[in-house]
């Protein structure tokens, strides 16, 4: 392909990040327009690339003009294309929506903030596009390092939770690197497709399954899979709201994508399910993740913290779906990457908007919020309904696929866990609605003129939020199209003929 879209996708935000950070010292006013420009161009090119992939099939791009096993190649198929679009578009919308909050919070360091923001996007986009195992590690570190810096900008406990995230994240990164090292010593290659073609004769080797385990544990730490999730709630709760609505929806989802990519195009489905037979164990772990995430979410008194535990439980959905080992489960998992990113950004943006107005996100401070910020709360409820899985919204459809997959695989425990967490989500969101609408019933209904006045957030924040909430329903309507034209072609053929749990 003579078109340079895959490269431009990465280097334009990168160049703009450097420009922004330099501009911070020359003309501060230009930082935001430049950053928005870089992010917008990234979104534009990712959509263009996705359209190209839909039309012409997989795109290969060799960087530096060296073909794949020697140089680094980009390999963009429909799955990557989808993730690329999700990452770049959501990051762009978030940048527009949180402009005021950022300007108010970091007046002096806006340039550095936006440079880190763009570099974070670059990291995630690169992870999604790359076809090289080591390049993935480097980009993972770019994304992680920027997120450590961004998260620590929050007040209070933010630096401490960011440092904990740094320790956990580095362990995860190192485990992934070790896994890649074990693969490299056995195969001698770092290119994903090349490794995949060299692996089958080595399936019996213990080094390969140890490599697989370490890669999975490393990715699991970064995506906050249940026993390894301890860094997530604190880090995302104490981060500044503009940052948590950027990182929370994207980082974990991209890591789920990495897991699926490793499963289907590096180690191949045969290895993961037949040779290792890990399916059952992983599904049980994800059941644990779902149940514990939901249960811990119930115990939280802070809105953002509650959302964080919902993320932990949603990660369980995706991991479990991917490891069910049948097309329906995998479809559900991939669809849920898309839907969950959308739902989570909606939740965190709404939380950020509330934070912008009342500077507090404790649940008991939300009394009368429906009267004060009706539009924001409506969006929050819409996202909540989607998380619960109410039909017209997209959350329903991915849950439907996951439950179908669970039934086909005979994993009734996973189905029960899904239903349990939906039930818990109902309780969680109706509690929010109850407090927001009727006031906290322990203290009686509040009748204060200050609390009754409408203090809706500025339109610049509301419009993106409304667009995203509308997106929830639109995604739901177009689920069928997405599944048939995007997800079905990428499902590995091996999944279909897998005899599952006889």
């Amino acid at each position: 392909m003579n078109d340079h879209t895959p490269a431009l996708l990465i280097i334009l935000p990168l160049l703009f990040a450097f420009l922004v950070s330099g501009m911070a010292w020359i003309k501060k006013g230009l930082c935001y327009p430049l950053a928005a420009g870089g992010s917008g161009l990234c979104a534009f090119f990712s959509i263009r690339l996705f359209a190209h992939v839909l039309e012409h099939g997989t795109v290969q791009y060799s960087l530096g003009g060296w073909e794949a096993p020697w140089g680094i190649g980009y390999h963009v198929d429909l799955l990557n294309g989808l993730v690329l679009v999700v990452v770049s578009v959501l990051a762009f919308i978030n940048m527009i929506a949180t402009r005021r909050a950022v300007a108010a919070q970091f007046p002096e360091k806006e340039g550095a903030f936006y440079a880190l923001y763009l570099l974070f996007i670059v990291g995630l986009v690169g992870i999604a596009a790359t076809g090289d195992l080591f390049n993935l590690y480097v980009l993972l570190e770019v994304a992680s390092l920027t997120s450590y810096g961004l998260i620590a900008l929050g007040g209070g406990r933010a630096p401490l939770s960011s440092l904990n995230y740094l320790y956990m994240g580095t362990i995860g990164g190192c485990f992934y690197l070790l896994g890649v090292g074990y693969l490299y010593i056995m195969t001698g290659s770092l290119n994903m497709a090349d490794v995949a073609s060299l692996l089958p004769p080595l399936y019996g080797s213990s080094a390969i399954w140890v490599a697989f385990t370490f890669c999975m544990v490393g990715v699991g730490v970064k995506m906050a899979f249940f026993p390894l999730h301890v860094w997530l709630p604190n880090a995302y709760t104490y981060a500044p709201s503009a940052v948590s609505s950027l990182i929370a929806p994207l980082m974990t989802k991209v890591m789920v994508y990495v897991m699926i990519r490793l499963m289907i195009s590096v180690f191949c489905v045969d290895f993961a399910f037949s040779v290792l037979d890990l399916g059952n164990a992983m599904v049980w772990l994800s059941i644990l993740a779902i149940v514990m995430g939901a249960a811990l979410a119930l115990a939280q008194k802070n809105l953002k913290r509650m959302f964080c535990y919902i993320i932990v439980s949603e990660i369980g959905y995706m991991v479990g779906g991917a490891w069910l080992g049948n097309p329906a489960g995998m479809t559900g998992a991939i669809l849920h990457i898309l839907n969950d990113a959308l739902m989570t950004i909606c939740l965190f943006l709404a939380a950020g908007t509330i934070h912008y107005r009342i500077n507090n996100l404790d649940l008991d401070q939300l009394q009368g919020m429906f009267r004060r910020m009706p539009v924001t709360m409506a969006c929050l409820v819409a996202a909540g309904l989607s998380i619960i899985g109410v039909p017209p919204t997209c959350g329903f459809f991915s849950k439907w696929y996951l439950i179908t997959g669970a039934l086909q695989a005979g994993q009734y425990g996973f189905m029960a866990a899904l239903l349990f967490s939906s039930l818990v989500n109902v309780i969680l969101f109706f509690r929010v609605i109850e407090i927001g609408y009727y006031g906290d019933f322990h203290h009686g209904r509040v009748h204060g003129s200050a609390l009754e006045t409408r203090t809706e957030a500025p339109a610049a924040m509301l419009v993106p939020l409304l667009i995203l909430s509308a997106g929830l329903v639109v995604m739901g309507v177009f689920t069928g199209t997405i599944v048939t034209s995007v997800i079905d072609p990428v499902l590995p053929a091996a999944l279909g003929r897998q005899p599952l749990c006889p």
Partner: protein
Amino acid sequence: MKTVGIIIVFLAGTLLLYATQDFPPWGAPDSPASTHVSPRYLQRAMEETAVPNVVTAVLADYRGFDTMFETTVIFCAGIGCFILLRVFRQRPEDRYYRHIATEITLHVKGGRIPNKSSEFERIDALWTPYDLIIKTVCRILVPFIQLFALYVIAHGHHSPGGGFQGGVILGASVILLAISHNMRTAIDRLSEKADNLLMAIGVFIYTGIGAVCILLGAGFLDYRTLSAVLFVDDIMARSHGIFGVEIGVGITVMAVMISIYNNLASAGKQDEGL
């Protein structure tokens, strides 16, 4: 926490040790790692890039994309330290001055004596009577260290070294100045603004060279097309392209090392250092 640590370490260690049984013996020339991808680099790097140091050739050309992100990681660290630690608005603090003629130390609370004064010299709060030998030797050494650093960057094609090592050494020379004199002396030589701009300029050079290759009609970082503007053949164009990106890497690494040190050692005030 200790028990958890021991359990995790034991589990991970056992797994890793268990897997070594299938490894090729240590240093075996016929292991897959030595026979699959790497022989091509050794055999053809010289004819394809005219760079005898294969590590440099692979680093900046075959896997140049990795290296670009490696430089980006460094840049992220610099920006990260800056955004985390740097404080701009600060209360006027106590300052210490020394009368040069009489060596009397003044402790000024809140205010300040004009910085440019021939009679008074500003000193750090933890100032100790300095050693003339250390100051002089370091000041004499700095230019030689910098010269060596430039050599390391420029000679990376033929000997160990390159942008990273040279950049770190360049940065270390300025850090040495800051340690042996004081931080303000080093900042006078290279201001914070210049340092931060250099940080961005270095990576910009790297990415820019890649982007120029796109503008000239080839793939990203495909240095061959630089032959059109450099008036050399394709192979030498690769060699010069590698040199260009090494310079970019060197600039960024130097600036970031200085910036991180200044922010860490002064806790973001960029005033009094180690």
